[in-house]
């Protein structure tokens, strides 16, 4: 086997997760964690991840029950953005764009507004979807550290002399950073202020100065300031792949930073170059896919900040502007390849932020009123729609 040594530099959760994942993927390769000069971010004693977390744990062999117990992890099915410039937006962890009789379900909902009916986000939510998780970040990092040690990840204080096959860098550099400050606020690491509340949803409040997230696990308050949001435009150069904070800067909501890090780790594993000659081609494809995913995640993160304050479309990042234009035009989303955000979540967000389409698709006008009501009622009751 050509791949003999993989180095991971960093001391946070993404670095631990990457080291373990690479070790599991390539048991014959030496994986070394380099912690030299790495400051402990502290993780604020609190962390968040999306539904991908459980999948990732399955891939690396971490029992989800153990994770839940040791990290005081609590599931979250729904996030409510409360009081964002007067808007309350409910976002399920997973929601799909669904069609019945050739008409989009959300368009039927828009066509037949009825306050007594289930909300659009509830209508589109997948009740069987895996939940997101809110948990003790310090405990999680400790768990991953023990796991890394147990499966043979070496840990050193300084970079070994030999050049690795691949270096995973989780510390942010200055070069090549695409700055998204025009569209996204920067936040500090946050301060845990109070114990959380016991319910299965997370509530996030934003007053333009502070962001407060209350989950079943914790309540945490983020202030403005901190690393510049955005993305590394070339996350893979030569033998170095930038992961986690080194690759993308996202606000600490909806478990986005950890979700992005895990997605990148799994993508990096798919693209481990098997030979020296393979590096340029696989790095190019990795960067292409990563750029698409990162842009989409940043647009998703920026959307509530921009939409709830009524920002002009021209002041939005281009991809988000296209989404908004299409939705306002006729309640549709443009086709977006490589967007990790499910289309149903986008619809729930856009509608929740008060965007109302000019018109709906003609296909949504085909069912008569009784049929449209019937479809919506059955959808709300979770009756299998394919039986319609």
């Amino acid at each position, binding site marked *: *086997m*050509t*791949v003999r040594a993989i180095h991971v530099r960093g001391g946070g959760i993404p670095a631990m997760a990457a080291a373990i994942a690479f070790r599991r*993927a*390539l*048991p*014959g390769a030496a994986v070394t964690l380099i912690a030299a000069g790495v400051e402990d971010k502290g993780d604020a004693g609190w962390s968040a991840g999306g539904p991908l977390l459980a999948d990732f744990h399955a*891939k690396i062999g971490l029992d989800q029950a153990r994770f839940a117990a040791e990290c005081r992890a609590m599931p979250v099915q729904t996030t409510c953005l409360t009081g964002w410039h007067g808007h309350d937006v409910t976002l399920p962890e997973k929601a799909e764009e669904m069609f019945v009789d*050739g008409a989009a379900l959300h368009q039927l909902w828009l*066509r037949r507004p009825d306050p007594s009916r289930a909300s659009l986000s509830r209508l589109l939510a997948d009740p069987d979807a895996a939940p997101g998780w809110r948990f003790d970040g310090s405990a999680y990092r400790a768990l991953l550290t023990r796991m890394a040690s147990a499966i043979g990840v070496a840990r050193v204080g300084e970079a070994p002399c030999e050049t690795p096959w691949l270096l995973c860098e989780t510390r942010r550099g200055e070069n090549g950073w695409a700055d998204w400050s025009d569209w996204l606020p920067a936040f500090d690491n946050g301060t845990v202020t109070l114990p959380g509340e016991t319910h299965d949803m997370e509530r996030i409040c934003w007053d333009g100065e502070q962001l407060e997230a209350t989950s079943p696990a914790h309540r945490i308050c983020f202030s403005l300031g901190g690393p510049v949001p955005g993305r590394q435009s070339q996350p893979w150069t030569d033998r170095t792949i930038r992961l986690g904070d080194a690759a993308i800067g996202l606000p600490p909501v909806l478990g986005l930073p950890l979700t992005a890090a895990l997605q990148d780790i799994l993508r990096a*594993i*798919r*693209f*481990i*170059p*098997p*030979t020296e*000659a*393979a590096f*340029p*081609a*696989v790095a*190019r*494809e990795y960067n292409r*896919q990563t750029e698409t995913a990162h842009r989409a995640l940043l647009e998703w993160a920026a959307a509530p900040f921009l939409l709830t304050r*009524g920002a*002009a*479309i021209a002041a939005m990042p281009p991809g988000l502007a296209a989404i908004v*234009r*299409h939705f*306002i*035009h*006729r309640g*549709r989303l*443009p*086709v977006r*390849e*490589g967007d990790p955000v499910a289309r149903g979540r986008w619809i729930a967000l856009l509608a929740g932020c*008060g*965007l*109302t*389409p*000019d*018109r*709906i*698709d*003609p*296909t949504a*006008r*085909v069912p008569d009123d009784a049929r449209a009501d019937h479809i919506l009622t059955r959808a709300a009751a979770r009756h299998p729609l394919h039986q319609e």
Partner: protein
Amino acid sequence: MVTVKAALDAAVFRMARTRYETGAAPTSRESALDERGAARTDGAAGPMRVVIVGGGTAGWMTAAALAKFLGRQIDIRLVESEEIGIVGVGEATLPHLRAFIRRLGIDEAAFMQATGATFKLGIDFRDFGAIGESYIHPFGAYGFDMADVGFHHYWLRARSAGSVQPIGAFSLPIVAARANRFTPPLHNGDPIDSSYGYAYQFDATRLAPMLRSFSEARAVRRREGRVVRAERGEDGDIAAVILEDGTRMAGDLFVDCSGFRALLIDGALEEPWEDWSRWLPCDRAAALPCAAPPGPIEPYTRATAMASGWRWRIPLQHRIGNGYVFSSAHLSEDEACAQILGAVEGEPLADPRVLRFRAGRRDRSWVRNVVAIGLSGGFLEPLESTSIHLVQMAITRLIALFPDREIAAIDRDEYNRLVDLEYDRVRDFLILHYHATRRTDSAFWNHVRTMDIPETLSRKMELWHAGAQVEAYQEGLFLEASWVAVYLGQGILPSAWDPRADNPAAQALSGAMDDLSRTIAARVAAMPDHRATLDGLLRPQAA
């Protein structure tokens, strides 16, 4: 008819946008209603008037789908001339057509009975990589992923150790096709039983009449006549088409299904054609039906490389469709006709008919109020049976973006973006079949082997060479399994594979692969013969 409520809804929607985009005070309900009313080009109320020009496969597929999914929202008229024959493209199809037929509500057996259809599990490519080699591009994947690693990586590793069967042994549709057996896939969760799809091989000249009946039963009005010119409105849109007898057919949206003549998109609007013949030099086809020989019916289409192109063989219930797709720069029409006559296996049922075409697509398929669907919008040779799929794809996009009274640039742009994407990706896939060859026996193959290829394809091939990776995309017809089939089938072996495929012990991997091929062989052995399946399906129809 638009209801008052719908108009009010629309007015409210309009106000919401005004507030959002400009921050201005809400428009009054009355003024918003006025605004919408004025937007109608002719000021008249009523359903949008759609005029479909041309009644071949594309025309009647469009009419049927619009009538089914938009119902009384639109008024559909189709004009065609019996004097103009149907090209009848695409006797061989892709699995997507099943969804189209099903969503129309047409019974599969009735469809197959009416069109003389047989089942299809893939395409058998012969002599493309090198003379004497063949492979089937199946409607399904090889094996299945293990530990998130594609099966072909494990196969490549086993192959390098010299201890593995051809990769076709790990594909149920390939093994079934070679054995002339067929049964529809079982959606029982079993990774082998549900590992494949199927399509149809059918008489395309019978599809249009079938869909005509379907459409006319749903209020589509057919007009016999030949369109001689288009009338432009003051805004530059097409206002009407004028028939030979002087009849004027006015419309709000025109669908140009007039085939290569492209009466509206080219004749009236002069939308440029993006020529791809530098990559796909075949520009003629000599088509020839012949009698079906006795014996089994192959549940696959054959594509056999010839000195100046390739020829198809499509087995239907009642005959065999044949044709030689060739480059006129390398072969004369007379020579092509002679060669196809000499190649067919049954008694010819007609003289060879030569079709002329040019690979490419319109710069934009939707221009002003004209949407070009079918040959008027683009043409890619039938090497991968994509013609009807491209029609179906365009119809699906049109329905999704169908205008609500006004035609908006944002819808047109999105439609054109998606249609272009599909064409461009299919184009690259077709070019691969020619470029990935080791043939040196003719000027034609020397040309396609050494020609420059699109950068998009070049990038894909580099990625494959580097580590057996396939460029990932979600939109597009041919995904990873198809690319792997053609790469490996035509002898394009990568320099390495995913290093994770090295994880299993060699013996365990070998054992697992043997088990898989044995299981597939056993499942196929238990399948009925293709003809028996057809007889079982069609006999009740005949009765």
